[in-house]
C-alpha cells in the first residue's frame, strides 16, 4: 500500500532518454561538447605519443641540464620564459634542468592513466557492492551499507596521504595511486547503484518478470542492469575529473608520483619554491591541469543532462516553461 503512490514517478525517471545513437548526435550538436571532446582527444593522443613527441624534440624527461641553470640565482633557468629555446621548446625545470615539454607530455600519461584506472576501480567495486546490497539479503545490505557509511566518513584525502606514505617506495607509484584513489572512492557509486536497484526492483515490469518465473540472475541481467547503465555512466563521467584532481593533489603534496617520474601534480610540487623566480614553470602544468579537468567536467556535465531526463527538464524549464506550462502542455501533447 505505502509504496504505490511513488511508482509512476519512478517509472518516468527510469524510462530511457532515447537510443544511444540519438544521445551521441545530441551531444555532438553542442559546440562546447565538441570543443571539450577535441581537448580530450588531443590529450589522449599526446599521452599515447609521448615518447614519439619527445624524440622529435630530441629530449627526454629525465636528463639533467645543469648548464642551462643560473646557479647564482639558485638554479633558475637562464634565458627568458624559463629557458625556452629551440632545443627546449618549453624551457627547463628550475633546479634540475630537465626538459619541461618532455615532462609535461609524459606527465599527461600518468595523469590520464591514473584517473581512468581509478575510475574503473571505483565503478567496478561500486556496481558490484551496490547490486549485492540491493539484491541480497537484508543482512548483506546492512553490512555493505555500514561499510559504505564508514567509507564516506573516512577523511579520504588525509587517509590517502597517509596510505601513500606508509607503503614502501619500491611499489609502483602510479599503480599505488590508482589503487588508493580507487579503493577510497567507490562509496558514492555503490550508494547510487543500491538506490537505483531498490527503486527498479519496485517497478511492475520486474514483478512481471518474477511472475513469468524468471530466476534472480535473469532478472538482474534483463531488467536491472540495462537500466543501471545510464546512471552509472553519468556518475563515472563526474568521477573522472575528480580523480584527475586527486592524483594531481597527492603528487603536489609529494606523496604521489615521485621524480624522476613526472606528472602535472608532481611538477607543481616545486611550485611554492619557484613561483616567484620562474612563473612559467608553474603556469604550464597548471594550465594543462585546468584544461583537462575542465574538458572532462564539460563532457561529464553534458552526458548527465542528456542521460538524466529529470536534470535535463530541470535545466530546460528556465527557458520555455513557466506558468501553467508543464502541466497544460503535457495534457495537450499527450
Amino acid at each position: 500500500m505505502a509504496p504505490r503512490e511513488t511508482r509512476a514517478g519512478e517509472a518516468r525517471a527510469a524510462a530511457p532518454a532515447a537510443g544511444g545513437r540519438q544521445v551521441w548526435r545530441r551531444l555532438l550538436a553542442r559546440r562546447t561538447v565538441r570543443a571539450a571532446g577535441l581537448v580530450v582527444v588531443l590529450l589522449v593522443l599526446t599521452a599515447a605519443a609521448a615518447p614519439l613527441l619527445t624524440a622529435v624534440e630530441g629530449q627526454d624527461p629525465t636528463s639533467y641540464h645543469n648548464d642551462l641553470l643560473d646557479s647564482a640565482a639558485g638554479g633558475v633557468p637562464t634565458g627568458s620564459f624559463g629557458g625556452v629555446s629551440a632545443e627546449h621548446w618549453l624551457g627547463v625545470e628550475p633546479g634540475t634542468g630537465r626538459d619541461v615539454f618532455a615532462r609535461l607530455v609524459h606527465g599527461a600519461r600518468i595523469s590520464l592513466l591514473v584517473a581512468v584506472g581509478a575510475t574503473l576501480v571505483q565503478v567496478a567495486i561500486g556496481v558490484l557492492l551496490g547490486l549485492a546490497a540491493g539484491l541480497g539479503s537484508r543482512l548483506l545490505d546492512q553490512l555493505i551499507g555500514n561499510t559504505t557509511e564508514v567509507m564516506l566518513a573516512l577523511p579520504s584525502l588525509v587517509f590517502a596521504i597517509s596510505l601513500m606514505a606508509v607503503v614502501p617506495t619500491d611499489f609502483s607509484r602510479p599503480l599505488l595511486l590508482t589503487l588508493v584513489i580507487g579503493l577510497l572512492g567507490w562509496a558514492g557509486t555503490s550508494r547510487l547503484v543500491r538506490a537505483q536497484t531498490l527503486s527498479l526492483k519496485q517497478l511492475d515490469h520486474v514483478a512481471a518478470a518474477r511472475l513469468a518465473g524468471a530466476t534472480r540472475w535473469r532478472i538482474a541481467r534483463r531488467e536491472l542492469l540495462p537500466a543501471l547503465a545510464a546512471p552509472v555512466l553519468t556518475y563515472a563521467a563526474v568521477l573522472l575529473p575528480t580523480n584527475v584532481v586527486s592524483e594531481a593533489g597527492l603528487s603536489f603534496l609529494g606523496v604521489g608520483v615521485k621524480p624522476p617520474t613526472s606528472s602535472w601534480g608532481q611538477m607543481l610540487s616545486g611550485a611554492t619554491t619557484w613561483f616567484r623566480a620562474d612563473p612559467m614553470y608553474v603556469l604550464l602544468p597548471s594550465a594543462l591541469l585546468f584544461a583537462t579537468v575542465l574538458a572532462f567536467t564539460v563532457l561529464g556535465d553534458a552526458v548527465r543532462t542528456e542521460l538524466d531526463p529529470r536534470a535535463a527538464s530541470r535545466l530546460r524549464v528556465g527557458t520555455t516553461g513557466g506558468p501553467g506550462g508543464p502541466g497544460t502542455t503535457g495534457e495537450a501533447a499527450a
Partner: protein
Amino acid sequence: MSPEPLVQVRDLVVDFPVGDGHLRAVDGVGFTLEAGQALGIVGESGSGKSTVASALLGLHRGTGARTGGSVLVAGVDAVTAEGEELRRLRGGSAAMVFQDPLSALDPYHAVGDQIAEVVRVHRPVSRRAARARAVEVLDRVGIADPARRSRSRPHEFSGGMRQRVLIAMALACEPRLLVADEPTTALDVTVQAQILDLLHELRTETGAGLVLVTHDLGVVAGSVDRVLVMKDGRAVEHGPVADVLGAPREPYTRALLSAVPRIDAPAAPGQGTGPGEVLLEATDLRREFATRGGLTRRTAPVTAVDGVSLTVRAGETLGIVGESGSGKTTLGRMLVRLLEPTGGRLHYRGRDIGALGERELRPLRRELQMVFQDPVASLNPRRTIGESVADPLRVAGERDERRIRARVGELLERVGLDADWYHRYPHEFSGGQRQRVGIARALAPGPRLIVCDEPVSALDVTTQAHVVALLGELQRDLGLALVFVAHDLAVVRQVSDRVAVMRAGRIVEQGDADTVYDSPQHPYTKGLLAAVPVLDPVEATARRHARLAAAGA
C-alpha cells in the same frame, strides 16, 4: 440581470510550441457563463479542457504559447490584459482551484500564511488582518479548529483537507469566478462527494460563477448547469446538463456516455460456465510492513491486510473494491505470491503456497498471473513488447524462435494488437495499448487465474470500456478466474460475479455482486455507494440532498 455575462469566451485558440512548429491545443472554443451559474468542461486526456481553464486566468502568458480570440472575465480580457489589471484578475476576480493538492501548495509555509499572502496581494490589509481572513475562509470550507490548523503545513493535512485548503485560498478574495481543474481526481469517492458538495454550496451562497473541468461525466452531472464537451481542442457539444447527458446530439458524446460504467446496471458476466472448482482459497490472510528497517530502530509494523478470507473459483470474477489505503493492492499481490503473507494460509488448488520459497513457486508461477495498474511501469522500456510477451515462454524453456514468434503474434492479435508490432518499444504505444500488451504477457504462460490490479484506472473512459470488455471476453473464452481489484465501484460491478468490499485491511462485506450493490448491509458499503456520482442530474441532486440531510441529522 446584468447585461454583461461573467465570462465570455470567443474563438479561443491556444498553440503550444512543439519542436520547431506549434501544436494546436484549443481550436476555436467559445462559451458564456452568467454569474452564479456553473459550467462543466469535460473531455478525455488531450482534449484541451485544462488549457481552456488556464486561459481564463491568462496563465499561458509568458510560456511561449500563442493565444488567440478573446477571453473576457469580469470585463477584463485575459488574452491582452497586462500588469496590474492581469494581477487583479488572477485571484481577485477569478480564482483557480488546482488539482493534485499536495504539490499545489508550498511545502515550506503554513497554509494560513499562504492564504494570507494571496489576500495581501489583492487587498491593502495588515498581515494580521490577512491572517484573520485566512482563518475565516478555512473555517468556511469546513476545516475544524481553523485558527490552529492554519499554522500547519500542507503535508500535515489529508488529501481531502488539502483540497479544502485550496478552495479556501480561492475564496480568500471573494472572486466572482471559481475555476476548478479536476479538483477531485486524486481523491477517494467519499471525499470527492464532500468536495463537490462544498463547491456547490459555496456557489449558491456567494453567487460566484463556477467552471468545473473534469474527465468524469459523473462529476459534472450533479454539479453544473451547462456542459461543454471537448475533443481534440474543439467543442463537440454544448448545452444544459440535462440535455447533454440525457439526450446527447453528437455521436462522440453518446460514445462517451455509453462508455461510462453504470453502477446501477447489473452486468451479467461469466454466464454459462457457472462456478467451477475452488482455485484459490485464502484463510485469515495477513500482511504487515515494518515501517522502517534496521538493527537499532524498531517501530510498530503497519498492518496492510488484516485477516482476509476469500475463495476464487475457476471461471468466475471476484471484484475487490476499496478506497486508497484499504490494502487491496497488497492483498492482490499476495494472492499471486509477489508478496509473502505474514500470517494466515493461502491454498492454491489444495496446496498451501503461502510460505513457499521463490524456487518452489517457480513451477506454479505460470498459473497465477497479474495485470498491473501503471501501463508505463509494467513494461520494461528497454525491451520490445514482443520480447516482454515472449519472456514467460522463454523462461518455460521454449527454444524454437519460430514457435515463439508465432505464439506471441497470436497473443498480440488475441488482445487486439497487430502481430507485426513485435519489434516496437512500449513508448510507441498509448496507455490502452500498453495495457493490452500487459494482458497478452499475462496470458502467455496459459494461466488459470489473473489478478488485475486497477487495470483501467490510468485510462480514459472509452479506452477503459474497451479493456474491460476485452478482459470479460478473454475470461469467457478461456475459462479464466479473475480477481479484479479497483477503487471504482461501477467498473467492479460491471465485471464481477462476486464482490468483496475492503476497508483498513479487512473485508467488511462480501457476496454476490447484485446483492452487495442493491442491498448493502455494512454502513461503509452504503456510504461508498451513496457517494458514487451518477450521470442523471436529477438523481444526482436528489442524492446530494440526501447526503446533506444525513450529515445535518
